[in-house]
């Protein structure tokens, strides 16, 4: 499409404004992590790395990060297995109530976190008699992580159709071999994208976590929430936030790179 000169200039301006609006606050977080002022004075009176070393030594922050990583990894792993299996079943077989099952799998992502949190906490405590802790937290996170994996997987399966699988079986491969050698490789990039998204969802989840983690467990979002308004901890929280910004660039970069060289996408086109 071609635009006239003024239109082009206007589009450029809007794009710049939107990007500025999104990234200026993030840049401020990174800058403030070096701010000598405890109350984030603007402009910063000086720069220091004191908060970064304080953050490194903070047991609370370190523990919270480890817990969050653990929960996100395990929940994503569960979601990858169950989400893929559900997508395969719903895409490849026709059975009574198929659309209902599909809706029920997707629903948790639309439900308000408060509702999911209360429901799960109640179920764990009263129906199953399980104390809230790591197990209940991971299971709760998995309920909404499955959705992102499932959505990505089923979209890919729909686009692929059953042709390659038929070719594989025609060449003598059984069901399992076909899944392993053909279906799974063709789904790889979709599963990676779903997995990354699911990891990110779990990592910054705060509402469901509040209800299902119990007292002893502190994930990073909860730790940040509890420490942000303590004058002593505010700069450390800011450092953690700055570190997370830098870290979150990595998986996005990886997924972009993988998407560029993905043959299964090229083939489905």
């Amino acid at each position: 499409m071609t635009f006239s000169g003024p239109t082009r200039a206007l589009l450029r301006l809007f794009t710049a404004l939107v990007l500025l609006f999104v990234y200026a606050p993030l840049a401020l977080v990174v800058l403030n992590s070096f701010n000598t002022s405890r109350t984030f004075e603007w402009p910063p009176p000086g720069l220091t790395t004191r908060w970064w070393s304080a953050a490194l030594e903070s047991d609370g922050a370190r523990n919270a990060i480890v817990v969050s990583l653990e929960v996100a990894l395990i929940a994503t792993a569960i979601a990858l297995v169950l989400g893929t299996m559900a997508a395969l079943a719903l895409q490849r077989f026709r059975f009574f109530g198929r659309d209902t099952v599909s809706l029920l799998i997707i629903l948790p992502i639309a439900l308000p976190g408060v509702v999911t949190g209360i429901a799960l906490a109640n179920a764990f405590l009263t129906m199953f008699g399980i104390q809230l802790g790591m197990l209940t937290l991971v299971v709760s996170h998995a309920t909404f992580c499955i959705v992102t994996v499932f959505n990505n997987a089923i979209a890919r399966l729909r686009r692929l159709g059953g042709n390659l699988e038929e070719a594989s079986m025609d060449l003598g491969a059984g069901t399992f071999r076909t899944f392993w050698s053909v279906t799974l490789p063709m789904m790889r990039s979709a599963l990676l994208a779903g997995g990354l998204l699911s990891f990110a969802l779990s990592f910054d989840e705060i509402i469901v976590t509040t209800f299902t983690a119990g007292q002893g467990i502190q994930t990073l979002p909860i730790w940040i929430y509890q420490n942000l308004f303590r004058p002593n901890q505010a700069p450390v929280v800011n450092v953690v936030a700055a570190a997370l910004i830098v870290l979150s660039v990595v998986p996005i970069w990886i997924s972009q790179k993988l998407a560029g060289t993905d043959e299964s996408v090229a083939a489905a086109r």
Partner: protein
Amino acid sequence: MSTPAVELVALTKSFGDVTAVDGVDLTIRDGEFFSMLGPSGSGKTTVLRMIAGFEQPTSGTVRLAGQDVTGRPPFARDVNTVFQDYALFPHMDVLANVEYGLRVKKVPRAERRERAMAALESVQLAGYAGRRPTQLSGGQRQRVALARALVNRPRVLLLDEPLGALDLKLRRAMQLELKDIQRDVGITFVFVTHDQEEALTMSDRIAVFRDGRIEQVAAPADLYESPASPFVAGFVGTSNLLEGEAARSLVGRAGTFSIRPEKIHLGDEVHDGDATAPGVVHDVVYLGSVNHYLVRLDAGPTLTVLRQNLRGTTDEAMALRGQRVTVGWAPEHVIELGADQQLQKEES
């Protein structure tokens, strides 16, 4: 005679209310190049998919080399398929694609490599072993799909309109090449197509499908020269139908008759002893090496007459438009067709 390669007995397939294949009986001989020809939706591809095992028949039996394989999955049948869209594995290179069937059957690595390379050589793609399917042209992909199937030395090779996506020139070349390959390897080929010319070019025998049933099974020449029904006459080549009153006045008796366009002579080319009929040239269609003359006979029907452009200029041919002419044909070139209830109903 040896055991037939494929036997279909009363094969029927319904999808919900739609009967795609309706009681097909068919015997395909060992080593034969057999085509299933028909318009889209006539059930030929569904029959092929039932032979391969991708579809389970609603009723009926599929036998391969005398063995009942009706309930068996695709991977337990000694057939391989060349798919319409090739279905090459995009995440593997060409060699890995061709080796796939052998790897699944646990053929030792060295033998596997050797057979795959030989198969690639036989389709003139030995230099492309390391390429990805996305880096190949349509014709090359088609050859890889062929090599991938043939390397397994199946008893029967199923081909589902494999030339459909190629341009005309390449398609003609591949038709001859496929026929050569089939003669070399001696494997039974079952070829699905909607292109009558393709079927006539390559096949030992052809089954003409219509609405899930077989209209006629015959060798190409028999199919063309003695079609069993108006449908076959119309689908294989161009056909001039004479029926009802026109048949009585032009042929001399009641019935349904067909005359091929190249058997009808125009004007001064009419021979002694030919049956003749007067008419007006309604249109002239220029087709390069030949022209089609549409002649509206005084007796009613419009006949297509084919004449090679051997003499005279195109302008002269075009000038015939609107002229009164006499057309004629040798009585032995009038083919009497069996009754075809459905077609007559559709036309009335």
